[in-house]
């Protein structure tokens, strides 16, 4: 950010420093509640507060026992297993369907494109509790309520909008003449899709997949409605933990999830840079 020029008026000076103060406050309120969890998760006591020993940086006040609890407690292990089996499958479904939808909707001759797009995006806009209640009643009717596939389908529906949005954004910069060139050289539509179009929109597909994965992995409302105890996911277990046990194990889990999120977001950023590079490469 540019330094304050010597001719700045009092108002400009006030705004210059006021703007910085606001930025710091925003970041503080966004990040502090998350950061504070990390040291607390190493608490040697079963409390949600900093002990005297922790503030004095006494090594004895810290421990990994909440992490041990997470990895040994069957409830948590079951929840972890469920999350790990539901999220990837829901992501795969969302990516396959969302990418196809985005590619299809990018064709110039599709009628009612805006309306179709709005319907596909709606799970992202409609309040989650309404989607969840709707899915509950609908899935109960067709026997999917309380099943693994019910939760997977529900999470896929929530993830599809993210995939559609990211892939559509990548397709905007996609040069249609490449598809024509591939056809001209004898490649059929399927080969053209996998050899030419897919590699170029891959960054969009992958970032969509990450969003879809996080959506499923963090989701608690829909799974409470559509799932049963057998589909209890990590967020669900944390919700129960907060309500019934208030065990600091939740903090340990939260720290692990934060670490996973940071890794995923880093991957996302790296992909975005790669995509920018690829776009700079497309001639014309």
């Amino acid at each position, binding site marked *: 950010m540019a330094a304050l020029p010597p001719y700045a008026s009092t108002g400009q000076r006030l705004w210059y420093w006021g703007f910085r103060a606001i930025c710091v406050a925003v970041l503080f309120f966004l990040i502090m509640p998350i950061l504070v969890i990390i040291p607390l998760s190493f608490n040697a006591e079963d409390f949600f507060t900093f002990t005297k020993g922790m503030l004095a940086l006494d090594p004895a006040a810290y421990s990994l026992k909440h992490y041990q609890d997470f990895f040994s407690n069957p409830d948590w292990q079951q929840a972890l297993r469920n999350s790990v089996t539901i999220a990837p499958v829901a992501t795969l479904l969302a990516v396959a369907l969302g990418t196809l939808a985005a590619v299809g909707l990018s064709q110039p001759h599709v009628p009612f494109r805006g309306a179709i797009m709005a319907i596909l995006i709606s799970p992202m806009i409609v309040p989650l509790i309404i989607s969840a209640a709707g899915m509950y009643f609908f899935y109960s009717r067709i026997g999917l309520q309380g099943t693994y596939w019910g939760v997977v389908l529900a999470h896929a529906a929530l993830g599809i909008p993210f995939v559609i949005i990211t892939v559509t954004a990548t397709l905007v910069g996609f*040069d249609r*003449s*490449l598809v*024509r*060139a*591939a*056809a*001209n*050289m*004898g*490649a*059929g*539509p399927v*080969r*053209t899709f996998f*050899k*030419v179009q897919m*590699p*170029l929109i891959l960054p969009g597909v992958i970032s969509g997949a990450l969003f879809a994965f996080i959506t499923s992995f963090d989701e608690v409302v829909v799974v409470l409605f559509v799932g049963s105890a057998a589909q209890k996911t990590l967020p669900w277990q944390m919700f129960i933990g907060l309500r019934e046990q208030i065990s600091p194990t939740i903090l340990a889990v939260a720290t692990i999830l934060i670490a996973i999120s940071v890794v995923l977001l880093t991957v996302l950023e790296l992909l975005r840079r790669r995509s920018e590079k*690829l776009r*700079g*490469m*497309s*001639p*014309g």
Partner: protein
Amino acid sequence: MNAGHGNEAFVAFEHVQKSYDGETLVVKDLNLKIGQGEFLTMLGPSGSGKTTCLMMLAGFETATHGEIRLAGRPINNIPPHKRGIGMVFQNYALFPHMTVGENLAFPLEVRKMSKAEIEAKVKRALDMVQMGAFAGRRPAQLSGGQQQRIALARALVFDAELVLMDEPLGALDKQLREHMQFEIKHIHERLGVTVVYVTHDQGEALTMSDRIAVFNDGRIQQLAPPEDLYERPENGFVAQFIGENNTLEGTVETIGQGNCTVRLGDGSVIDALPVNVSRAGERTLLSIRPERAEFNLDRLPEGTHTVKAEVLEFIYMGDIFRIRLRIAGNENFVIKCRNAVGQRRLRPGEVIDVGWLPQDCRALEAA
């Protein structure tokens, strides 16, 4: 090379029409035969239907009416990827995620050729465009001219008998464009492939083509070798569009065999060649090339009619002089003369006599 008049046309358009909206025809009743090994250019202003014709041949657009045949076979119902036609796109359409070598190998892999065969063909194609050292580069690492060469090599690498080019040199600077014109022409002569080339640049069309089809308003206005097109345009549009051209309005005074005299608006009389005027008294549009009008009267034969002209502007352009004159009320009559030793430099305001050989002034019917 002029295979355009053979009995068996390699590419044939028969009564082809194209409409995008079902109302206005972009291409109106196109009939065109292209001979094997011919270099045919479709030339015309934007919106004239030339690119649409190329796209119908490539299969990216469907003809609303009529038939297109390739080597005697109707191709209307064959999808683009089964037509086996090479194409150079306007923006090159190189695959940015593949290296140059992979780009060239793509059509060969589709055809399930062996690795060794692919390698040999890619190398040969790259050598042909003098890009042999660039197989490992990505398109983004190449200059516009180099990308253009790669696009050309990719269109030729799978031995297509027909290669389409859609304004391939449009994005290059003038010098490179002129260089590539000759290079493409030489490659065409060497390989003997049939080329259909689309451009709006008439200089390019004149330089490269065996025949040129001039498009306007969805129709072919004239189909002829470059020399005929330039020297003997058949109508006002072609005369205007190809090369620089001066027009004068007048009335046919006398008409004879291969010669007529025309009275201009200011009453002066001038010689002309009747092209599509047939009787005295008819209105006519005279068409004269700037380099064929002469003010050095010693160079004109005895008895040639001349007209008075006032010099309005004299522009020094290095190798030539460009002089704007007022003749019979037309203030945009341009003549060009070589910057030769002893050439007279005219001054604005000067009044001179200008004349030309009757065959250089074509009397066309008034539009």
